[in-house]
Every structure is written in structure tokens, then in C-alpha cells.
């Protein structure tokens, strides 16, 4: 089984379907209800009270965290936006355990992406989101020890999951933790009859600040806006071909490298799950600072997938290289050796 998919590319957070049991209106809350406050744990609703804060009269929902009795006050109008939800049902919990016990061999290796996604999952992902964090970090810990921050995040996620399971199944927390680890690390000889795990949590996309790699985004230099018709690829090849004339492999290597890069990116949507496919493109569009183009790219993701421009650009130099080399053979021969292939060596 693959790990949780990448962020949902197109939809805004508001458009994503709410996690099951999310409380959309404070009027739904009654005294004595048990709710889950994201990142805080299971709380019991104590009542609604009015408080005078900075000259404003605010209606606050008072809750009490079950674990330690800490008081939690939430403005009534903020209830829908903080992700307050009901304690997971038995059916949801069963799905969580089947998810925990399923094979998982694909942890996210980029720590920045992983940490951010995990933080989002803990807040907006419901009980399954918390389970995804625990399972994701647990499988990562099998590869290498977790760094301190993530070790803490793992412990927090485990704490939240264990307590919600304990409340949902009506068992002590230690027993709930035994259930979790029985699923995560089954003893020798134990095999579970697993059902298909629930659909992974979808997370909203975020603007990504990514520095374009060398050679990437050649067609986004804005030269088209200047009205100049430059054969940029040809000019670059001409320059590169001079020193490379003696060493044909070098030019070929460069072109192949570029192609491989383009192929790698083009092939990504095919390897990834269907939901993840537009993500790579979203990333490509967001990196250059050209909103109009980005919009156009978002509007037609399928077209781009068919003909990735970078793949074409990368393929071009291969054919152009021999031409350029043929154009200036004498000059190339006249240049000193040190100037010729300094970098290529």
C-alpha cells in the first residue's frame, strides 16, 4: 500500500469535504458532549458563557480537556473554523486500525514537506489524519531515528490517537496504546484479516516557494513579452558546442542529463497516484512569478501532461549539437585547450 497521497492540488481548503463528524455550527453543541479539539485532545462541553473582552461581549463555548481538566474557551463564531469534531465512531476506529495494520513502505523523505503535512493532518485530518501521522513517522523511524522535533510530533500524535481511541472504545489509554502497537508491530506469527483501509485524508494545496533548478524554466525568462524572436536554445548550443566540438560526449551528456530530468518529471504523474498527478504541474507553474501563465497552466493541466515543454527543449540540443559543431570547426581548433573544456573535464 502506498502512503498518504500528496496535497490536493486544486481545491482550496474550504472546498474539500469536511472530515466526518466536524461540527459546522456551535448550536450543535450541547452540555456534556464529548468533542475532539484538534491538537488538544478530547474535551467535554461545559457550557456557553458570555465574557466582556476588550469592550466586546463575546459568547464563548467552555470546554474541559478530559485528560487533565484544562479549561478551553472558544468563541462561538469560531467553532466551525477550528475543526472541532465529534469523537470518532466505532466504524471509523475500525478503519483506523485496518489502516495502521496495512503495509506501509513509502514515507515522505523531504522533512519540510513531511513536517508541514503532518502538522496539517493533525489539525484538519480527523482521527485518520492523526493515524496517518503516527504510521508515517513510525515507518520512517524504521529507516532512521527521527529528529527531535519529529520525535515530539510523533509522541504528540500518538498521545492524541491513543486518547481518542480510549474514549471511542471505552478502554483505558494503556490498553488503547496496546491496540495501536498490536496493529503497527504485530508479534511474530500474527496475521490480520484486513479490510481495505479508508481513503487517505486530502490536504489543501499551499503556495510552494521553490527555487527553480539550473536549466529549469528557460521558457519563463519573459523574453516572449519583449517581442524578440530569439532562438535561445540554438544560441546556447552554439556557445556550448564550440568547446564541446572536440569532446562530443560532453555535449551529449549535457543533453541527456536534461532529457533525463525532463523525463523524470514527465514520468512522475504516471508513477504517482492519479490525485498526485497534477501536483507536479502545480509546482512547475507556481515557481515562476508569472500569474497569467500559471493560471493558464492550471486551466489545462491535461494538455501540458501530454507535451511537457521542457522535454522538448531538452530533446532539441541533441539534434542541434552536430550542426553547431560543423559551423565553426576552425575556431574551435584554434582555441587553447585550457579554455576549451575547462568545465567539461
Amino acid at each position, binding site marked *: 500500500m502506498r502512503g498518504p497521497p500528496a496535497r490536493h492540488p486544486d481545491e482550496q481548503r474550504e472546498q474539500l469535504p469536511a472530515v466526518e463528524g466536524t461540527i459546522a455550527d456551535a448550536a450543535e453543541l450541547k452540555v456534556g458532549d464529548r468533542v475532539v479539539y484538534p491538537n488538544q485532545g478530547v474535551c467535554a462541553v461545559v457550557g456557553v458563557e458570555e465574557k466582556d473582552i476588550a469592550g466586546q461581549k463575546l459568547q464563548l463555548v467552555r470546554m474541559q480537556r478530559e485528560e487533565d481538566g484544562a479549561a478551553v474557551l472558544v468563541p462561538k463564531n469560531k467553532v466551525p473554523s477550528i475543526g472541532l469534531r465529534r469523537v470518532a465512531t466505532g466504524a471509523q476506529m475500525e478503519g483506523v486500525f485496518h489502516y495502521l495494520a496495512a503495509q506501509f513502505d513509502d514515507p515522505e523523505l523531504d522533512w519540510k514537506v513531511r513536517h508541514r503535512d503532518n502538522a496539517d493532518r493533525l489539525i484538519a485530518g480527523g482521527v485518520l489524519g492523526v493515524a496517518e501521522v503516527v504510521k508515517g513517522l*513510525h515507518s520512517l*523511524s524504521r529507516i532512521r531515528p527521527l529528529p527531535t522535533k519529529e520525535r515530539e510530533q510523533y509522541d504528540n500524535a500518538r498521545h492524541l490517537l491513543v486518547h481518542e481511541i480510549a474514549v471511542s472504545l471505552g478502554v483505558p489509554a494503556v490498553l488503547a*496504546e496496546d491496540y495501536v*502497537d498490536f496493529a503497527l508491530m504485530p508479534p511474530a506469527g500474527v496475521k*490480520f484479516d484486513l479490510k481495505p483501509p479508508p481513503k487517505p485524508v486530502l490536504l489543501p494545496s499551499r503556495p510552494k516557494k521553490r527555487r527553480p533548478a539550473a536549466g529549469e524554466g528557460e521558457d519563463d525568462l519573459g523574453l516572449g513579452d519583449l517581442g524578440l524572436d530569439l532562438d535561445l536554445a540554438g544560441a546556447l548550443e552554439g556557445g556550448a558546442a564550440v568547446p564541446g566540438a572536440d569532446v562530443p560526449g560532453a555535449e551529449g551528456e549535457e543533453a541527456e542529463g536534461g532529457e533525463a530530468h525532463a523525463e523524470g518529471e514527465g514520468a512522475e504523474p504516471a508513477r504517482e497516484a492519479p490525485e498526485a498527478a497534477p501536483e507536479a504541474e502545480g509546482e512547475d507553474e507556481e515557481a515562476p512569478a508569472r500569474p497569467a501563465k500559471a493560471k493558464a497552466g492550471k486551466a489545462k493541466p491535461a494538455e501540458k501532461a501530454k507535451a511537457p515543454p521542457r522535454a522538448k527543449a531538452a530533446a532539441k540540443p541533441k539534434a542541434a549539437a552536430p550542426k553547431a559543431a560543423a559551423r565553426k570547426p576552425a575556431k574551435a581548433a584554434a582555441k587553447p585547450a585550457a579554455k576549451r573544456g575547462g568545465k567539461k573535464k
Partner: protein
Amino acid sequence: MIRIVTLDRIDPSDVAALSGTLYRAFGVGTEYAGDKPAPPEAELKDGRLEALKLLREAPHVRSLPDDKVLYITSAPLALKAGPLGEPPCFGFADFGGERAVITTAKLPARGVSEASVEAWRKRLAREAIHALGHTWDLHHCYDAKCAMHPSWSQGLPERPDSELCVFCREKSERKIRLAKT
């Protein structure tokens, strides 16, 4: 203070060795509080003791706030089955509470040789640290060398260490420092 209560007969030298290891693990004094009978309410038909009931009905031991009581039994313990079945039970504890129980039934045979007795004591200490760790709010740890790693895990070494990892030790130390007494 950790108070050890035996629900079945256990060699006093084993209890003394356990006290020393617990002191080294948590930096808290340990005392043997005597031998008490297991509560009959916790007994199941198959001869096992129900861990949850055992903790509730266990004989009371005089203790101060923040003291922890560790019960040791030789009878196998049973847990309520979960969504995927009943996990193996080496011990049980109140999370953040004051009582914990461990069983020697699942440990390897004690033997008579010095090496096997030493290995048995080490394993007993590991289970005791694990159960008491839960009473200091410690969760299970993914590090197979840590005493908080699940006892049934396939990653557990054949002779596991009776020590906490750095993260778990620091967490327990913080908890112990916050104790009122």
C-alpha cells in the same frame, strides 16, 4: 517512591535486584511492600488474571501521593480484545496513574545458572520499567533498545536492555520533577 508488591512468591534476591535497577532507571527510591494475595475477582476461567480488574481490585498498599505501586504476579494476564484481537500482555498500568502490574509468566525460564538468572532479572526489570513508565505518562517508543518498546515486537533483541532511551528518560524525569512530593 516505588513500592513493590508481590502477588506470588518471588525470590527476595530478585526483588532486591529489581529495586536497584528501578532506582537507576528513574532515580526514585524503591521499597518492597510485602507479599499480598491476588484479588479473586480478577481470576478468569482459563486461569489468567484480568489485568484491568486486577489493578482495580488489587490489595491496597499504604502510599503517599505520587508514589507508584508495582504488583508482580506469576499468573498470566489477560486483556480485553481490541478491533484486531487481544494483544499479548506482559504488564499493564494506569496511564498517568499510580498502579502497575507485571507478570513473569511470559518471561523466558529463569533457570538455575548465573547467566540465565541474570538474563531473567534483566527482563523482569525491563517489564517493570515499561509498566512504571506508563504511570509517568510515557508512551510506547519505536526504539527497540528502549524499555518502552512494545514487549511483543519482532524488533526486540533477544536480550533486551532494561534502560530507557534519551527521549523517554528526559520525559519521565520532567514528570518526576513536577511531582508534588
